[in-house]
């Protein structure tokens, strides 16, 4: 393995670790009051987050040390995660939370199959794309089936955030895999038309867009979270109120340790603190893409590009929502937001990226 690849691997994992530690620290700050009110007497969220991280580390090393990922294994994993998506829809097994059936409960543990299926889908799609011969037409029905089968199943829960990330990442992957530009131009028009159609068919969606453009117009209704988030970020200014000094975490901003944890970070650490976090993310993503560019095989290139893009997209979406650039969608901030499945799956992604660079590197040596 060349030195540079190794160097980017270390940088990649280092950033991931830093972000996770920052996450635990701010889960502590953000969740303390919320959990004392809503989850009195239960294990504090930050302790649980540490436990999840320990599990994530075990997963990480298991993947690194584990067997190689062949195409056959990836297909099996893909089918397995599809099965989980079906199971989650069965009443009694799937657990309702916040208006969607996204969780499967196994004893005290709850997992979100959608988080896993994003990875297996992207990996399997990558292997299928790498199989396309250079003289062949690249567009294949099979690719769409691989993506839309899980997308439709997730839609049934429903979990729009996951669907969005899965579908957009997949289309970026197809773009990288030389899908024709015409398709994307067509998709753009189709998207605009579809959106217009959706708004015409259900005018409440227009209201949602209005509340995104001007959240203050309905600051107690649809604009509530956006407004509360702005009231956390704005008053913080350059340097913030200081660690633990957030005001909005006192029940003003609902579930401050989850989707809106970046608000609390910005509130306590200010613009400067936010910038530090953004730079860490930027280095992480840059390392990810650097690893993919330096890949030795097409398959490796597709896989790392897809997984990194998935992380970037999720981060972008979350931050965009928090700072009011995008309408509110329920997406967590990778590494930082509280949540077992989320953290473990993120670290699974990290592990896979490292594993894939290792594996193929070794194979190229042989």
């Amino acid at each position, binding site marked *: 393995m060349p030195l540079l690849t190794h160097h980017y691997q270390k940088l990649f994992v280092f950033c991931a670790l830093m972000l996770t530690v920052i996450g635990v620290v701010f889960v502590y700050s953000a969740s303390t009051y919320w959990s004392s009110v809503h989850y009195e007497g239960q294990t504090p969220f930050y302790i649980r987050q540490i436990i999840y991280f320990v599990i994530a580390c075990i997963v990480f090393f298991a993947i690194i040390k584990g067997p190689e990922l062949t195409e056959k294994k990836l297909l099996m994993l893909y089918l397995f995660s599809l099965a989980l998506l079906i199971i989650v829809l069965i009443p009694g097994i799937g657990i309702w939370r916040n208006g969607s059936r996204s969780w499967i409960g196994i004893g005290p543990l709850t997992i979100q199959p959608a988080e896993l299926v994003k990875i297996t889908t992207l990996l399997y799609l990558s292997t299928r794309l790498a199989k396309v011969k250079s003289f062949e037409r690249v567009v294949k029905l099979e690719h769409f089936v691989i993506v839309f089968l899980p997308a439709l199943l997730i839609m049934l829960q429903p979990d729009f955030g996951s669907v969005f990330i899965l579908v957009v990442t997949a289309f970026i992957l197809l773009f990288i895999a030389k899908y024709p530009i015409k398709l994307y131009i067509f998709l753009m028009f189709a998207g605009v038309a579809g959106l217009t159609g959706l708004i015409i068919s259900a005018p409440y969606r227009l209201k949602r867009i209005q509340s995104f453009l001007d959240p203050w117009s309905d600051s107690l209704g649809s604009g509530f979270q956006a407004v509360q988030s702005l*009231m956390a*970020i704005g008053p913080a200014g350059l340097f913030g109120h200081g660690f633990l000094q957030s005001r909005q975490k006192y029940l*003003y901003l609902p579930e401050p340790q989850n989707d809106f944890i970046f608000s609390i970070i910005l509130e306590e650490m200010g613009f400067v603190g936010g910038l530090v976090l953004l730079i860490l993310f930027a280095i992480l993503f840059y390392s990810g893409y650097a690893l993919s560019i330096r890949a030795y095989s097409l398959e490796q290139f597709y896989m790392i590009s897809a997984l990194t893009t998935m992380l970037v997209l999720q981060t972008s979406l979350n931050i965009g929502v928090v700072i009011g650039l995008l309408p509110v969608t329920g997406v967590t901030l990778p590494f930082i937001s509280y949540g077992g499945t989320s953290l473990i799956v993120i670290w699974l992604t990290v592990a896979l990226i490292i594993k894939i660079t290792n594996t193929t590197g070794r194979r190229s040596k042989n």
Partner: protein
Amino acid sequence: MKWISLLSKKRLKLIIYAFFLYGLAIIARLVYVQIIQHEHLTELAKANWDREIPFVTERGNIVDRENEIIVTNKLAPTLYFIPKQSDDIALAARQLAPILKADEAELLKKMQKHAYLVKLAPEGKNITEEQVEAIQALRIKGVYSGVDYIRHYPYGSLLSRFLGFTGYDNQGLAGVEYEYNKILTGNNAAIRLFTDAKNIEMAHVDDEWKEGEAGATVQLTIDLTIQQVMERELAQAMQRYDADQAIGIAMNPNTGEILALSSFPTYDPTNFKNVDSTIYNRNLPVFMTYEPGSTFKIITLSAALEEGVVNLEHDHFYDPGFTMVEGARLRCWKREGHKDETFLEVVENSCNPGFIELGQRVGSQKLLRYIKDFGFGQKTGSNIAGEASGILFSEKAFGPVEHATTSFGQGISVTPIQQMQAVAAAINGGTLYTPYVVSRIVADDGEVVVENKPEAKRQVISEQTSAQVRHALESVVAKGSGKQAFREGLRIGGKTGTAQKVENGRYKDGDYIVSFIGFAPADKPEIIVYVAIDNPKNHLQFGGLIAAPIVGQIIEDVAPIVGIEKSQEQIEKVTVWTDPIMVEVADFVGQTVDEVVQQHYPLTIEWHGEGTIVSEQMPAAGSKLMQQGTLHLYLTEKKHED
């Protein structure tokens, strides 16, 4: 093993650039929200976090020219309740109800409101300190007593029609309280509670104190002592003559500062709800317009002297009791006429035909111009709420008859304050000053927000003319219709006025407003006093008989306050058989009540205070008092040790 095509790498880079641009957008947005919109969002957030228990700051005081308090505040706390902080609201209501003498069910309904802070009003508004102590002893969770005040009037109804009053929330509703409400109202202080979004107070965070600011103090030009003297005299007159209304103004003629301002009947400002709104909404000295009658002759006289069309001492006039103007017979108040008289006697006698002659000598347009120059026909600019401008004849309608009647004060309509303003100019050397009643407004921190200075509008007549007017008016008091205002050693000048009231364009029979405008000392006036009594009964309705003695009494009583010294150069008083016999007042100080009574002194004695020993007397020993005058004796319990 397939190689990655250049196109794929290029496309990946395109994606990376797109994400990079998005990253820049994030930073730009953060700059916008955290730096550009920082202050705006901070305001909004603070409003969102604010959980305050208001501590009402004191409303500004109203003080007189010597900084004596006229209106102030009394502590009367108000209760607040935070429902979320109570474990048992029903119990809290049960405990509070008897202390507040409130209906328990109604109180409970209020306390169960879905609000972070409930003001327990009216039950718990402005409660006594004893009630507060009783409630605090119970230690009811969520109950807070916030500092609050009610208005306090140490002098009761004094000046009430000018001062006005405040309503339920201490907001000014009438008079000065209304006009200066914004200035008098303070910024409330508050205890800022640190709570979560559900209003639960957080134990580990200290509450903050938000500074407030008391309202500004409004200082009036009013002198409380002069005001008290005036109201005492007017109250007596109201009773003695069973009058409908009474008006009084005292002013410094050299500055326009109003020293006393009163309207009768008065009312108790704490009990305004039971008072007719025409009482508290009408500040008579500026609101009421009526025919001025003879007091207006001062204007005609000033114009004639300034124009040099008369020599008061040498020019003679024959008054047969009437004058014919364009076929209209205008009568003198004295049916048989004053016969041959000098023009000084015309003034002393207040002879109507004589004044018509003076008016004619001045000329109609010129007279009208003088009237306007003296400030009639428009508001004085005193800044007293509810001021009227009065009615004059227009130049077109000012025919010979109107010209003639105006010369002696009929057919026009003016306010008392306009008359004060004009007569002050006529006697102060000719300068028309804007009357004013607010001298300064001082903010809580001592900063002077407003300072009013005397404002000269214009020179209307010359100093020489003014001196002649003063002399003529002093002689009105010494020898003429104003004799009742005469006081030994005080050079009082003045003019009587009697005007029939007009109702629906017709004179009302037997319903007069009698007035007197007087000033002292006549050589260098320090004070000018106007008194008008509306519809006095049980008496001959002449200004000389009713209003003049009141003005004389007021000037005599306040002379030491405004610094008027007794003079020897007074115009000799002419005594006629109708003149009262003057009695020299003996020294009663130190005597017991019994001793005083046994002397059978030929004066009406009015007792003040409680006790057996006379501690003070008014007027002082040695001064002269009319036989039917009143002697005021003040009592104490103990004899002076000396």
